[in-house]
């Protein structure tokens, strides 16, 4: 088992970077009740990858075949601006707008992949393939995650205030729209890069389940971040370690472990109340 893990250690390192970045941002995603914004952004990112592959398959903008992240980033950041500016449009409630974005982006992604050259082979971009993560990929992920995490460490106070009580933050002179957009941008960046390797389902898992585990275990913001990170990293290591020797898909295995950890956290919470 250990040999098998060693064989894919670069993939594990990359997965741990994704788990770390998503689990930090996930605390805001869960507390701000924008879980489905995260899902919609992940789908937009996958639609961007599909669009890049379709365009290059049609002989247009050939370099996109090697760098589908360009269109993934473009669509995700467009989504970020849209959602950060308040996705409610007239009589349409915000969650309906998010639902429309999610459904259309998912369908468009599948349709484009179906018509892209070697479409079946490219399905992997939508579903993710963490075992295929290389050292170069991990370095790209680190180059995204480190600035994002530094920004979150540096501007924790600002992100917390505008998330917790935006009206009061505004009266104290905080540029709430700017900080909201900044927060969403960090989310969009991490999702767009993580999506290439981990796929929609695993990215969504890392954004939600570890944060839920953290909130169940801890009663402070610091503790919530800590347990969110720990549970994401533990789920990644255990899921990876179990899936490789047993020849199971790694993404679902990691998600299953995340689910078990969330249930354990729930039981701990129940015991604490007694």
């Amino acid at each position, binding site marked *: 088992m250990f040999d098998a893990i060693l064989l894919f250690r670069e993939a594990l390192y990359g997965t741990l970077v994704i788990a770390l970045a998503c689990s930090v941002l996930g605390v805001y995603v869960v507390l701000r009740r924008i879980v489905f914004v995260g899902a919609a952004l992940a789908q937009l990112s996958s639609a961007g990858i599909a669009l890049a592959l379709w365009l290059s398959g049609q002989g247009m903008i050939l370099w996109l075949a090697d760098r589908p992240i360009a269109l993934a980033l473009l669509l995700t950041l467009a989504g970020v601006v849209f959602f950060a500016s308040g996705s409610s449009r007239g009589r349409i409630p915000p969650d309906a707008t998010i639902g429309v974005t999610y459904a259309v982006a998912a369908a468009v992604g599948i349709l484009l992949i179906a018509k892209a050259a070697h479409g079946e082979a490219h399905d992997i971009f939508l579903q993710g393939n963490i075992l295929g993560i290389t050292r170069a990929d991990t370095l790209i992920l680190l180059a995204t995650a480190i600035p994002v995490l530094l920004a979150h460490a*540096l501007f924790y*106070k*600002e992100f917390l205030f505008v998330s917790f009580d935006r009206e009061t*933050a505004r009266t104290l002179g905080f540029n709430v729209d700017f900080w909201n957009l900044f927060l969403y941008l960090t989310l969009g960046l991490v999702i767009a890069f993580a999506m290439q390797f981990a796929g929609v389902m695993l990215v969504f898992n890392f954004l939600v389940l570890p944060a839920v585990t953290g909130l169940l275990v801890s009663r*402070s913001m610091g503790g919530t971040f800590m347990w969110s990170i720990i549970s994401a990293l533990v789920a990644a290591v255990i899921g990876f370690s179990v899936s490789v020797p047993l020849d199971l898909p790694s993404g679902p295995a990691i998600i299953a472990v995340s689910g078990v950890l969330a249930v354990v956290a729930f039981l701990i919470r129940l015991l604490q109340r007694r």
Partner: protein
Amino acid sequence: MTQLVSFENATLGYGRRVVLSDLTFSIPEGDFLGIVGPNGAGKTTILRAILKTLRPLAGIVRHAPNLRYGYVPQRDQVDYSFPLKVVDVVMMGRYDRIGLGRRPGESDRDAARASLAHVGIADLADHPLNALSGGQKQRTLIARALVGKPNVLILDEPTNGMDLVATTQILSLVRELHERDGLTVLMVSHALNEVANYVERIALVMNGGFRIGTVDEIMSSSVLSDMYRIPVDVDSVNGHRIVVARRNPDGDDIAHDGRRPVPHTHAAASETAVPGHEVDV
């Protein structure tokens, strides 16, 4: 007396939608003003203009230099799912002083604890915010507003959803802060019967109209009947003013202009045997 905020023929609204027009009034230092009206009348719009988060569509809103507000939002604007301690929430009132990218220090923590003691809940400093009662949460938000050493304390519907005991305690605390600390206080509420017995001046906002004056000036049958557009009586029970709408013999309340008034749902804090029924403002 120094005027802290002055509205000069100000028209307020959002985009092309005018909410209130031609407002002219001032808020002097040391004032204790209740801004009262039904939901949607424009109270929050006035509040936003005072807080400088809304620019007037026309006219001028002047603010005294170095004015610092302590803002207490409506309780439901705050997200209680955040796992925050009471003292951490109060420290937020000093975030603008701490500087970009810096964390609160020991002096901020001490100031937050002092502010909690000031509003009578020093012992709750390390409790989780979401474990507090409605009245304790409101005291926490007031402590947060005070920790920044404001010139003006602004409270938006501070007693919304509270029972009679908590309402009385919060309003008494606010009055005490005004009298003891000389703090200028603006309190927005839809409940005239509650506010009228605590503040010194009242601004009535309703039906597109605006009237401001001392409590004695506003709490008169003629002024209130004119504003509500239904016959209204002002009674006194044990020194407390109670506003009641006059009931017609056939049971319907008809406006002066013959229209039925829009029914309101609020039940005021004071339950009395005064004939007629209370008016929701």
